[in-house]
C-alpha cells in the first residue's frame, strides 16, 4: 500500500464529503493506495509542500491553485467550488456601492489570495484603483472580525468566514464575486483541485477516479445538503449554523461542472496578470480531460 498525499484546507471543500461518504474507499482498494489528508491553514505552505513533493494533490483556493499551476510543475484539474467570495461591510454601513469605497479602509487576505485581484477588479469596474483605498493585509479568518468590529470599512474574504460574519448579523454583503467576475456558469470560481504533473502522468486512472468521486460528492451536496453539512461538521469541525447559512444563502455555490475549461482559466489568468500577481510570462497549466470524463 502506498500513500497518496492530499493537501486540504479547513474549508467546505467537496473532497471531505467524498471521504466522509465513503467514495474514496473503493479507489483506495482498487489501486492499493491510502489517501492521506494533510491539512494546511492557508495556501502558502500547501504549495510549498507540493513543490517539494511532500504532497501529490491539493485542494485550495483558486488563487494558490492557479499560482501553483503557473509556477510549479503542476496542473489544475478541477474547479470544485464556485462563488465563495464577497466584499463585506458592517450591517449599518452607509456604503452601498463599490464606488463608495473610495478613501476607505479595506481588509484583504494577502496578495496570494484570489480575493486580492477580485478586489482590484471590483474597484476598476467602479472607476477606482488600488490607490483610492487603504489596504490592510490580514489573515482571511480575521477579515470578518475586523469588519464586524468596524476597524475597517469593508473587507473581502472567502467562505466560511463570509457566512460567519453574515450569520452574526453584524455584517452584510456589499457585492458578491459573481457580480464582479462571472467566470463560470455566471459565478465566480472559488476552489481548485490540482496536482503535481509527474504524479498525474504516472497515475492517470487513479486521478480519473478521484475526479469522479468529487463529482459524486458535489451531487450529494446539491441533493442532500443537510447530509453534506453534517459530514463537514464531522470532518472539519465547522459550526453547523454557519455552514447551513452558507449553503442555504448560496454564499458557497457548487456545480457538478468542475471542468477547468480554457476560457475560464484564461480569463482568470489575465485577471491575475492584470493584478500583478502573475507575471506576463506565467501560463498556468491545466488539464480538463479528467474533469470532462468525470462529468459524463
Amino acid at each position, binding site marked *: 500500500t502506498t500513500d497518496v*498525499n492530499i*493537501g486540504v*484546507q*479547513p*474549508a467546505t471543500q467537496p473532497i471531505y464529503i467524498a471521504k466522509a461518504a465513503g467514495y474514496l474507499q473503493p479507489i483506495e482498494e482498487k489501486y492499493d493506495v491510502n489517501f492521506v*489528508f*494533510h*491539512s*494546511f*491553514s492557508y495556501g*502558502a*505552505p500547501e504549495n*510549498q*509542500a507540493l*513543490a*517539494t513533493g*511532500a*504532497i501529490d494533490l491539493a485542494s485550495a483556493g483558486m488563487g494558490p491553485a492557479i499560482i501553483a499551476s503557473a509556477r510549479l510543475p503542476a496542473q489544475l484539474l478541477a474547479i470544485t467550488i464556485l462563488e465563495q467570495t464577497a466584499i463585506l461591510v458592517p450591517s449599518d454601513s452607509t456604503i452601498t456601492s463599490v464606488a463608495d469605497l473610495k478613501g476607505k479602509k479595506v481588509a484583504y487576505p494577502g496578495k496570494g489570495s484570489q480575493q486580492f485581484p477580485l478586489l482590484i477588479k471590483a474597484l476598476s469596474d467602479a472607476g477606482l484603483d488600488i490607490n483610492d483605498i487603504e489596504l490592510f493585509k490580514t*489573515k482571511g*479568518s480575521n477579515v*470578518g*472580525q475586523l469588519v*464586524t468590529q468596524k476597524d475597517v470599512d469593508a473587507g473581502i474574504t472567502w467562505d*466560511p*468566514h463570509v457566512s*460567519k460574519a453574515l450569520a*452574526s448579523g*453584524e455584517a452584510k454583503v456589499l457585492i458578491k464575486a459573481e457580480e464582479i467576475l462571472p467566470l463560470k456558469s455566471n459565478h465566480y470560481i472559488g476552489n481548485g483541485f490540482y496536482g503535481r504533473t509527474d504524479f498525474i502522468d504516472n497515475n492517470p486512472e487513479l486521478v480519473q477516479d478521484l475526479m469522479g468521486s468529487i463529482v459524486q460528492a458535489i451531487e450529494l451536496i446539491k441533493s442532500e445538503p443537510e447530509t453534506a453539512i453534517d459530514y463537514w461538521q464531522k470532518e*472539519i*469541525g*465547522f*459550526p453547523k449554523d*454557519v455552514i447551513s447559512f452558507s449553503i442555504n444563502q448560496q454564499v458557497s455555490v457548487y456545480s457538478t461542472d468542475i471542468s477547468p475549461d480554457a476560457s475560464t482559466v484564461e480569463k482568470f489568468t489575465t485577471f491575475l496578470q492584470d493584478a500583478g500577481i502573475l507575471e506576463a510570462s506565467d501560463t498556468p497549466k491545466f488539464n480538463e480531460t479528467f474533469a470532462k470524463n468525470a462529468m459524463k
Partner: protein
Amino acid sequence: MLNRIKPLQGALPYFIAGLAIITVWQIVVFLLQPSPAILPSPFKTANTLWELIQSGELFIHISASLSRVVSAWCLAALIAIPLGLIQGTNARFEKVFDPVVELFRPISPLAWIPLAILWFGIGESGKIFIIFVATFFPMLLNTVSGVKAVDPVMIRAGKILGCDSSFKLFIKVILPAAMPTILVGMRIAFGTGWAAIIAAELVAAQNGLGFLISDGMEILRSDLVLAGMVVIGVLGVLIDSIFRLIGKKVNWGQS
C-alpha cells in the same frame, strides 16, 4: 526563614493566579461583549475543554505537541549547550560562529516553514525543526553568557586540581558553574518552543495544540482556540515548575 514548601501550598499561588485571570477574562467579556466567535466566555471555554477531555481528543493533541516540543528542546539542548560552552571559552571560535548565529537568530519560525518542508517534508521532523529553531537560540545565548560569567579563579582551581583536558574542565567546572544561567536559557527555550508550536503545526499537522488553535481560528471555533491556549498555558506552568525544582537544586548561587 524556615522555608519548607509543602506541595499543595506550592500550587496555591497558581490557583490564585488562574482565578484572577478567569475573573479578568469574565469582566472583559462582560464589559466589551465581544462576539463569542472572537472571545468566548470562560464558562464556554471550560465546557469545550471538558468535552475535549471526555472525548480523549485533548490528550492526543497534548501528547503530539508535547513530544514535538520535548524532542526539539532536547535536540537543541544537545547542540546549543556544547556549542555555547565552546563559544563561551574559545574566543576564536566565537568570532567566526557568532556572526552566523546572529544572522539566523532573528528569523521567524514562520519564515523557516518553506525550508523545513524542503528539507524534512511534512512529517514530524519538519515540525520538530521549526520548534528547534525557536529553542536553539535562547539556550545558546544563555549558555555563552553563563560560561563567560564563570569566575576565572574557578577555572584555575579546576585546572590545577587535575582537569587537564578542556573536556574535563567543561564537565567538571564550567558546566556546573554556568548551570544556573544555562537553566534559565533552557526554561526560556521551553517557553519559546511552546510558542512556536502553532507555526510548526501549520504544516500539515493532524493533531497537536497548535493545530487545535490554528484550525480553530480557520473553522471559526474560538472556544477551541481559547481552550488550546489555556492548555498550553497550564502545561507551560507545570513544566516550568519542574525546571524551578531543578533550579533550586542547582542554584547554589543563592541561599
